[in-house]
């Protein structure tokens, strides 16, 4: 219910102009109090789990916070709440995808608990944190005060921590703590940023900071915020928590990856981007994004676990958005926004689908998923469209990527070249891992012909179909979406970069003919179907060097006339891409790049 109200209200805000509000001081005090309660809880967790990292990081932000408050520096933050078009876009994403995931979770958690054989349901706790997370995200995107921002930030950290450890297994606990300490690094960076803000611009209100004269000190402050954003958006070197989050029940992943949590980081960078236009800091941010995009795309190839692929793909796409934000031209900014919007819409579908499959097949290994199209036609079809939507035209994601490429291409030559190279490689690797997975799902069932028909609970269908419908509609009507959601954001700080003549999208250096492409996308397979009907054809046994056995001919004769099945396994290239090694390399380079970012911020 809340969800629908929230969704409706944010849609309502869409046509409003900038909305400003300052809540009564009482609220401020309440926030302050809750913040310290929160930090206290983190400290408690750190002590209880004997995790020195968590303890240390909590203390590291609690003490300076306390000092900051004691000095009363946190009060010149008028107005506290500012809702502009960027907030609205984020709000729409959060409040459309979020509730759908919650609906999905209603069914999922039932099945999930059956699976685990729980006697006492823990769903109450689960949904509490889910909704809290949504609430916090809403708060986050409207806060103008860095302090409030920081508070909501920490609330999302809390929810995330609690949701990841929901299943209370040892692994879940471990991964949850990893997520916690990484997020806390972001918290520390935030606190530091507040100090910087205070000293450099004498304010901790975002809108002031953004228009202040960018001194190196202030740039360091923005660098710190970017660092915090990297932790939330799981960029290298902080990528591992998001992978660890896979142990949580699927709706959590769906929520974290599509509409909340990770978007917080991108949001923050988008927020500060106008202020750092043309600085080397901005370029460094772009470099980290590009690097993450490239490396995670390669890593995703080596993944056997469905959610692993999805997780790396999320990190990669966030990297792409950060790359765009970092390039910081009107075009790239538009690209980042488009990507943000469509990524949420597509990723949600895939996670939800993956969750259903996992519950049905009891396996997350995509090697076990072969022939899924025969077993779970509805879910698989949805996932297939979702996948196509991730990397192929004419879907919105690809459109976003195309705008991004135009944007990267039009960035200054020599600085742009490394970004271009990373992006191009990443983009090809993306095609590889999606296409191979997509193909694998369509292998028709090799052996079992007749499995039970697929029965899906209503909430599953509802959430999947709605999200898919929105995705397709938005992709077809991308001109409308861009004009109403993206361009207004640009107008403020950049000036429009995208035009939509004749319902296509024009970047000034290229055109994406949305409608003709969609028409072809629909017509071509239809002709194909018609042709296949007309020509027909009987299904024959496969080629097995002539040694097929039996009617279906799916096994072959081998030594001493014994029978052997042929088998196929997916492609993971794991002798080329050794996950641990590459990830370690990524963390090392990522750390170096973060260092470079600060160096560049100073000079």
């Amino acid at each position: 219910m809340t969800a629908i109200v929230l969704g409706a209200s944010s849609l309502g805000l869409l046509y409003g102009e900038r909305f400003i509000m300052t809540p009564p001081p009482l609220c401020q005090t309440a926030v302050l109090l809750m913040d310290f309660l929160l930090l206290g809880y983190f400290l408690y967790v750190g002590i209880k789990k004997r995790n020195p990292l968590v303890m240390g990081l909590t203390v590291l932000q609690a003490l300076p916070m306390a000092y900051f408050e004691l000095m009363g520096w946190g009060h010149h933050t008028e107005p506290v709440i500012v809702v502009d078009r960027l907030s609205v876009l984020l709000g729409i994403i959060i409040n459309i995808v979020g509730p759908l995931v919650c609906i999905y979770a209603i069914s999922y958690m039932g099945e999930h608990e059956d699976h685990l054989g729980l006697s006492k349901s823990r769903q109450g706790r689960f949904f509490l944190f889910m909704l809290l997370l949504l609430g916090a995200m809403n708060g986050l995107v409207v806060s103008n005060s860095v302090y409030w921002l920081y508070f909501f930030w920490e609330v999302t950290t809390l929810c995330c921590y609690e949701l990841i450890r929901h299943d209370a297994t040892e692994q879940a606990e471990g991964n949850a703590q990893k997520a916690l300490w990484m997020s806390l690094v972001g918290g520390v960076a935030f606190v530091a940023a507040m100090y910087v803000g205070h000293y450099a611009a004498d304010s901790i209100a975002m809108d002031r900071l953004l228009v202040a004269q960018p001194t190196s000190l202030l740039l360091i402050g923005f660098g710190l915020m970017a660092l915090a954003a990297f932790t939330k958006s799981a960029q290298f070197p902080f990528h591992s928590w998001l992978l660890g989050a896979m142990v949580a029940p699927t709706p959590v992943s769906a929520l974290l990856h599509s509409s909340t949590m990770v978007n917080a980081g991108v949001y923050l960078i988008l927020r500060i981007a106008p202020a750092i236009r043309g600085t080397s800091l901005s370029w460094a941010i772009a470099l980290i994004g590009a690097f993450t995009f490239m490396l995670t795309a390669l890593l995703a190839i080596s993944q056997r676990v469905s959610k692993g692929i999805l997780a790396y793909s999320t990190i990669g796409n966030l990297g792409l958005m950060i790359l765009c934000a970092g390039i910081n031209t009107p075009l790239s900014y538009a690209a980042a926004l488009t990507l943000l919007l469509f990524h949420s819409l597509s990723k949600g579908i895939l996670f939800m689908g993956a969750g259903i499959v996992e519950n049905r097949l009891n396996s997350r290994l995509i090697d076990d998923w072969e022939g899924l199209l025969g077993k779970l036609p509805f879910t698989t079809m949805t996932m297939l469209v979702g996948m196509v939507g991730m990397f192929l035209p004419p879907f919105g994601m690809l459109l976003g990527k195309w705008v991004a490429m135009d944007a990267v291409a039009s960035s200054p030559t020599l600085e742009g070249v490394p970004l271009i190279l990373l992006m191009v490689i990443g983009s090809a690797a993306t095609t590889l891992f999606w296409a191979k997975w997509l193909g694998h799902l369509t292998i028709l069932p090799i052996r079992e012909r007749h499995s039970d028909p697929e029965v899906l609970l209503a909430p599953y269908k509802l959430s999947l179909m709605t999200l898919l419908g929105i995705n397709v509609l938005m992709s077809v009507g991308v001109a409308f979406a861009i004009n109403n959601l993206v361009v207004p954001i640009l107008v403020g700080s950049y000036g429009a970069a995208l035009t939509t003549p004749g319902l296509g999208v024009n970047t000034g250096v290229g055109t994406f003919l949305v409608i003709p492409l969609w028409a072809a996308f629909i017509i071509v397979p239809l002709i194909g179907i018609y042709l296949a009907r007309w020509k027909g054809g009987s299904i024959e046994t496969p080629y097995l060097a002539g040694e097929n056995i039996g009617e279906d001919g799916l096994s072959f004769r081998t030594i001493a006339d014994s029978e052997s099945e042929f088998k196929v396994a997916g492609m993971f290239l794991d002798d080329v891409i050794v996950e641990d090694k590459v990830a370690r390399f990524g963390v090392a380079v990522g750390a170096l790049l973060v260092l470079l970012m600060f160096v560049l911020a100073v000079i």
Partner: protein
Amino acid sequence: MSENKTKKFTVFPFGPQHPVLPEPLQLKFTVDEERIVEVVPNLGYVHRGIERACELNDYRRNIYLCERICGICNFMHAMSYCETIEKITDAEVPDRARYLRTVWAELSRLQSHLLWLGLFADGMGFESLFMQLWRDREIVLELTEKTAGHRIHLSTCAIGGVRKDMDEKLIAAYRSGLSGLRRKMDAVAPVFRNDRSVKAKTEGKGILPKSRAVHLGAVGPTIRGSGVSQDMRTLGYEAYGELDFTPITYDSEDVYARTQVRLDEVYQSIDLINRALDQMPDGPILSKSTMFPDGTAINRIEQPRGEVFYYVVGNGTIHLERVRIRTPTLPNIPPLLEMLIGHEVADIPPIVLSIDPCISCTERITYVNKEAA
């Protein structure tokens, strides 16, 4: 993530029908991605029962049957069979016949090695090289045809000598044909020897260490490529004792070495033929013997692919008691299985071809099919 380490393998049959394999042989491959982890051979697709048929036939007919154990080195089989029978019956082979046999045996080897080099090129996906080698191989086939009236089966060997002689014109044709061939080979030899991309397909692939080669009993160019100087021609049968022959060996133990051995042997065969033609005495070519074989003999000669072993028991009638033939590909199969492990699917054709598999003479064992038996 431990789950990510769970591997599934791809399992598929390579043969009996496969465009890279001209002959039916099945290798069941288990591959991890594209890396080979297991190979199981499955033979018997060509098994015809030749040894048994040899016991049923008039022993003189067997020359032609043995010749068709394999068409590629047909002359060698016929020669080996004749030699074995000659050993049993103590028949004298005229000198000229010995030289003629040597010439034709080497001609067969030339034909076979050129054929192999071509097929090997094809296996590497090097179509133009294949075409070029087979074009040049026609020179040898033309000589064969001029000698015996047929491109493949010479059918010139007989017990106690040979059926056909060579006149001066033919010898001249041999000389000019072979010098032409040598020139053509000079044009392609660098491709096998020095071309970087060809080396990438051969060097370090299909390693067969010397000790393993000896232990597993590899023969022919396969073992010579592992640095073991094993060649039956050093036994000096026919005219080889008088031709100053030394085997060619290479030490790098890989596909490259085996290729080089065969390439060098092409030149060596040209030399041997020329030398044999120089030294060839005049005289009769056939000494007829009417005695039916009675007794036992073994015979070993060097085919293009290695040692072939004949064991014949005669009982004084027109039919033989027992014929056993061990052909060179069979002992090379166990080494092949070892060579393949750890390489990629793309390396399968070069490695499999590197032993020059000749299934048709190997396939005289089979697994009994219960329903059919």
